């Protein structure tokens, strides 16, 4: 995956967030405070403005810049989480302008670990982690099986989609949805959903 594809990914993801602003907000309305789409869109609108100014940078620098923008404009729970994801991802691929399958795995895993540490979340807490973790695991398995980038990512995406749907079965233990107790069961998690969109855009940009 080269710099251009990384930029395409970010561009696509930002656009996807814009298109799904209402949808993500409605998901958050059911079990949270009805702002996940609004929060994400605030950050990714900024990113869309910023992207043209960072096209000539390496992948690490691009992801770092993305991280800073998201951290300083999303707020809420998703701001630090997506911000940390991109921050850690950027460190894993510093100075690079091309990523092979292993680099991609390192990048995703670094981001994943960032989310876990920042959010103090566990699997099954009904958060974005419940999509990110199985997706990265599936990607790793595919890479171990020597799958090419596109195929490996396709497998990750299949896992991510199922995992996203499965969050509906979980009772939230982190974030605003947790205050609902059992009432959070039956609703798909908004952060998990935006995280799936991020991975989908990544796949589509390859």
């Amino acid at each position, binding site marked *: 995956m080269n710099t251009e594809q990384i930029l395409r990914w970010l561009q696509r993801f930002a656009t996807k967030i814009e298109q799904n602003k209402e949808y993500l907000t409605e998901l958050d309305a059911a079990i949270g405070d009805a702002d996940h789409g*609004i929060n994400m869109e605030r950050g990714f609108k900024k990113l869309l403005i910023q992207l043209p100014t960072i096209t000539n940078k390496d992948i690490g620098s691009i992801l770092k810049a993305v991280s800073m923008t998201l951290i300083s404009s999303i*707020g809420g729970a998703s701001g630090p989480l997506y911000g940390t994801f991109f921050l850690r991802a950027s460190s894993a691929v510093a100075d690079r302008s091309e990523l092979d399958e292993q680099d991609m795995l390192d990048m995703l895993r670094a981001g994943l670990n960032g989310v876990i540490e920042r959010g103090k979340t566990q699997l099954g807490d009904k958060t974005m982690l419940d999509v990110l973790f199985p997706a990265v695991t599936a990607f790793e398995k595919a890479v171990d099986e020597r799958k090419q980038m596109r195929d490996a990512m396709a497998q990750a995406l299949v896992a991510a989609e199922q995992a996203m749907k499965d969050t509906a079965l979980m009772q939230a233990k982190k974030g605003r949805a947790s205050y609902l107790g059992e009432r959070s069961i039956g609703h798909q998690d908004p952060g998990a959903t935006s995280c799936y969109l991020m991975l989908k855009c990544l796949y589509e940009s390859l």
Partner: protein
Amino acid sequence: MKKLINNPEDFVRESLEGMAAAHADLIKINFDPTFIHRLDAPKSGKVAIISGGGSGHEPMHAGFVGMGMLDAACPGQIFTSPTPDQMLAAAQAVDSGAGVIYIVKNYSGDVMNFEMATELAYSEGIRVLNILIDDDVAVRDIYTQGRRGVGTTVLAEKICGAAAERGYSLQKVADLCRRVNLSGRSMGIALSSCTVPMRMSPTFALGADEIEVGIGIHGEPGRKRMDLMPANELVSMLALSILEDSAYTRVVREWDMDNGKWFDCELINQPFQRGDRILAFVNGMGGTPISELYIVYRKLAEICQNRGIQIVRNLIGSYITSLEMQGCSITLLKLDDEMIELWDAPVKTPTWRWGV
């Protein structure tokens, strides 16, 4: 739901601009990143107290910036935590070198953003500490990230603000703030939902005679839905939930300023007991007239008296709100002599002014 607003996107900015225009003798507002700070900050040798959180809870926090209370406040979008860059910029603007305390309400978003800000401020060479407020007894902490920060926040900001004004050291203010948190408990009810301006439909739906017991300040649910009851019964329910809450133990993360890392520390709120001297805080959620809050206070005072708990200070009004939500919350804070003295100390902010 009708509101006195222009474009919903401009709500927070315009409201802050109105504040800045109204209180130019006390505060200044910085935009991009957004924070409100005392006109006279940094004050040489004084520990700086900074708080922040989503907007929609006014007058908290911006209304508490000024002499004897906060040095700066960081407002986020409505019900959305502010961002680390706001918190860092605020710290840089008001730190005199004596250090900064972030007072943080226990919500995922606030905690994560303030933790990032703490790390950033530390890396910029600021002596920074991070104290959590988690006082909402309505929350079942077994399946959440613990109790939410509500009414005790207001009281902690007043008391710690006074301490900082008197020249307490960073560590002493932090210890005091932790002690206030460990001495306070709250619970609230909603008679109606709030409506977030960007959405313009109610956050939750209540039947014509239904209320939400244990409501959070963002409209999060608490313990249960039930039919409206007479005020006296509602007050009893809230007061007893607080007064009969047993010891509350949990582990929170605090910042180790010397080694630049987080550490876990166990905190325990002891239950209230006969003979305690307390501050009783009856808070309106934004849409409740003060006449009703006095009806609440009347019953609360009776309950406390019957249990041998002595209300030595009180606060009645809408200080930590949820937009135009109707309802109230009760916070009881066990006081000691030092806290009483600091509560009574002079304060001069857009919302509060006494002794000067």
